[in-house]
């Protein structure tokens, strides 16, 4: 039960933190259309987050709410990968982060549809259409910016190069991941590492971008050791719940 709970949080925290990062952008995008689309993605991710946390709360059986799980943990207890907490340095970073996550996210969701766990299956079934859209949206932008102007090409390449080191962490299995995969409940993400890099590379090539070759990768998020950005994300995220404990909003 502990491992199922941890497994769910591992998935859900990615969606929460990415939704939070996208939420910062609301009203500040390059045009109204992208503003609307990014808010939409944020909303989809937040919706998935809520389903996961509600289920996690039930699994844990300690009477917690989705908000307790979302807002009242210590930084070391958040299990999201480092990629999703990286800042909105510029629109190229926003799109690179999204793209590098979406390719993985869709693969994971597709597998989760086969889970023996009914609730996880249901979340995946509902989410698959959303995530397919995210992936189409971000892939299109990678191509547009990669194969746009010289400036956009440079900025897009910079973002991909910078964020590349956060990709490998997606395929590392925690103890909870392994146990849940073996039980047929969770997804063995390590299996689609190769397919992931193949698909990412294809899009990058179409976008006239260079596939980074670095073999050095960052890790730690899944064990709750985050980059220094995370503390500031949480300071805002948790502000109200920490300032006014135990209230209804």
């Amino acid at each position, binding site marked *: 039960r502990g491992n199922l709970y941890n497994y769910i949080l591992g998935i859900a925290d990615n969606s929460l933190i990415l939704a939070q990062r996208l939420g910062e952008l609301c*009203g500040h995008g390059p*045009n109204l259309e992208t503003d609307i689309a990014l*808010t939409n993605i944020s909303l989809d991710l937040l919706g998935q987050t*809520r389903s996961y946390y509600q289920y996690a709360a039930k699994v844990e059986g300690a009477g917690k709410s989705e908000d307790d799980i979302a807002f009242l943990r210590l930084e070391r207890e958040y299990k999201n990968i480092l990629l999703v907490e990286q800042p909105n340095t510029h629109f190229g970073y926003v799109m690179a982060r999204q793209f590098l996550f979406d390719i993985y996210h869709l693969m994971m969701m597709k597998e989760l549809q086969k889970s023996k766990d009914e609730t996880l299956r249901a979340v995946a079934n509902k989410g698959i259409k959303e995530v397919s859209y995210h992936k189409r949206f971000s892939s299109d932008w990678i191509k547009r910016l990669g194969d746009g102007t010289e400036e956009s090409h440079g900025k897009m390449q910079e973002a991909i190069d910078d964020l590349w080191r956060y990709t490998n962490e997606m395929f590392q299995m925690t103890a909870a991941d392994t146990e849940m995969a073996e039980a047929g409940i969770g997804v063995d993400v390590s299996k689609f590492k190769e397919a992931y890099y193949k698909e990412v590379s294809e899009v990058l090539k179409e976008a006239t971008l260079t596939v980074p070759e670095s073999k050095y990768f960052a890790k730690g998020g899944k064990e709750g050791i985050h980059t220094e950005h995370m503390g500031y994300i949480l300071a805002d995220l948790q502000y*109200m719940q920490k300032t006014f404990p135990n209230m209804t909003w």
Partner: protein
Amino acid sequence: MSEKEIKNLEEIFEARIARDEKIEPKDWMPEKYRKTHIRQMSQHAHSEIVGMLPEGNWITRAPSLRRKAALLAKVQDEAGHGLYLYSACETLGITRDELYEQLHTGKAKYSSIFNYPTVTWADMGAIGWLVDGAAIINQVPLCNTSFGPYARAMVRVCKEESFHQRQGFEIMLTLSKGSEEQIAMAQDALNRWWWPSLMMLGPTDAESVHTEQSMKWKLKRKSNDELRQQFIDQTVPQADLLGLTVPDPDLKFNEATGHYDFGEIDWDEFWQVVKGHGPCNKERMNARVNAWDNGEWVRDAAMAHAEKKEKKKLKKVS
């Protein structure tokens, strides 16, 4: 065209409006009609997108996941409103870039209510309840305005605004049933947003320009003061329901008129904010201009990419 012919067209045009026919973009229209509509619709569009900022300020700090999602959705709706109001403007022969230019250079105005800061979470409730409430009162009559695209946009906008208004009220209701701190927060938000909301309905009739012509074109159906009275009459009982006190010692129900009498509005403050010296005018404008400037390379890239694609297509065909 001779002057007579124009006069003739104008008469036919006015008659159509009088018969409640809709004017469509391709129809003949007087230049002043076109200009007035561009001004009003773009001002409305600008208000929607500037209005995203004060609420956007609380997205990362919303107190629950449900509220965070609702707030995101609301701000997204505002972007949507902006989008189709700009589109409606474009049917009158002006580009979105020109409209932005007007906003960014301060030539075009937007609702000055958005120049106040959102200081606490309760402001998300107060904005929905009061600001959207006042907006609806302004906008419902526009669902029957003479210019077709504007009228149709307004139908959709009003439907969503009224949802936002209920949602805002519901935030206030939750707070007013909550802890002491939450009740204080709600009261404080009402204190700060009440007067600016009354100002939203525009200057007093005595000071208001454009009114007569706008009435004829059904861009306006009631005077600012009538609308303001309607807003007050509708909102005060809601405040009572919340157990909150409207910050106006002169507020009193007048049995004779059937309306609420209310205190004097600080029009100096109104004009100061309208003229660009409100608490957040500079911040709002900076945020918009920065978003636009920082996005230039993205828009350029999108255009360059589209052109490249088009060329490739043509090559394949030829």
